[in-house]
């Protein structure tokens, strides 16, 4: 990990404290580390830090590592963890909050992918009011051209069926 300046470390401590002082971050204090969230998560296997570990990082004041995680962008919002958590922790809301903070501090890196998709989505809605999925996919493709060939066959089929 990058070596932090003193000022930066102070800033991070403040940020970390602010995160656990307020809902939904505050609910991380309820976590008993049982791992039900990680066991329920459909994409946990692809994550660097599992949902359980993200909660531990927040609680232990290691917010920066949580914010830099690929995991926070892999959450699909399926709500399985939220429904099963014995402590009722709103894990998806915590993930949303971490995403917003990570974006505010320009932390996501290229490999995270979802920030570009979400930002393209929001820009399109702010401009047009609605989302056009094909236009969104093309927009996303500008920043991640390597992801496109895998979808070309599907795009052609959808086009042929008048679904684009």
């Amino acid at each position: 990990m990058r070596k932090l300046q003193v000022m930066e470390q102070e800033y991070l401590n403040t940020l970390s404290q602010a995160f656990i002082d307020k809902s939904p971050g505050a609910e991380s204090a309820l976590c008993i580390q049982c791992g039900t969230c990680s066991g329920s998560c459909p994409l946990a296997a692809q994550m660097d830090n599992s949902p359980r570990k993200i909660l531990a990082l927040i609680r232990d004041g290691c917010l920066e590592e949580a914010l830099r995680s690929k995991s926070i962008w892999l959450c699909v919002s399926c709500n399985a963890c939220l429904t099963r958590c014995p402590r009722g922790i709103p894990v998806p809301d915590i993930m949303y909050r971490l995403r917003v903070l990570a974006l505010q501090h320009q932390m996501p890196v290229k490999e995270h992918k979802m920030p570009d998709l979400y930002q393209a989505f929001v820009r399109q809605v702010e401009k047009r009011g609605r989302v056009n999925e094909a236009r969104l996919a093309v927009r996303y493709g500008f920043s991640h051209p390597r992801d496109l060939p895998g979808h070309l066959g599907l795009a052609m089929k959808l086009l042929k069926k008048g679904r684009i």
Partner: protein
Amino acid sequence: MPMEICFYPGCSFETSAGYSQSLNALCAHLNIRLNSVPDWNCCGSTAFFSVQELSAYPAARVLAFAAKSGAASLVTGCNGCYNTLRKVKKLLQENEQVCSDIQTRLEQEGLKPAPPDLGIRHLLEFFAQDVPGEAWIRDTGAPKLRVAAYSGCLLSRPWTDVDDPENPVMLDRFMQALGFTPVDHRLKASCCGAAHALPYREETEALVERIVRTMQDKGADLAATICPLCQLNLESAQLGLGLPGLPVLFFTQLAGLSLGLPHSGLGLDKLLISPEKLWS
């Protein structure tokens, strides 16, 4: 007198595989009038929550327009929209700060926030619960099909009031009422990968593979879905997997088949995996 519903189509409705065609055919047959929310916009989906803190405005605007039209409840056919609208309604009830900010923005448009008693319902709830059971008269020529119901995540999660979050049954029971044979399986509310299917194709294909294989192992002829994104993911991921294609239909298309409506009006030709072989 036709039954009327205040309908929120959502952005994916028109381009979905026969969802709009089959819903229109069904409503014409059952004398139901769909009144779309005037000047509707995108609900904001998970994208807005991920980019802006407590970004409730898009969904609050939809709810405000629905309330303004005088409807007691709003009906949507998309799990994503359903979840976002309910989530924002709850947020507005619980967070005074967000509520007052939203109120100011809505007033600039001459709108008022929706009252807390405005209902938000899924299209499946409407057909399975509000349309009288006598309406479903099965056509003698309707195909006999074994249907694997797939409700997806957000109809019952985290809203455990509508259906069971682990093993939803509303869609199975509706299929049974239509005269089809529901196939019991454990992945009715297992995630399809949602929007992550675009950047994470291989990872989400693995999720769909597990779901489709389970349905096939249980002897299903086809899958029934209630959400445009679930339908697209379940159907499209199969193309890359080399599975013996399991057709994935909207529940409205199956309702049309049961009632004996002309196949040409159900948008079946829009499906990437044709179900025709099941009855020809």
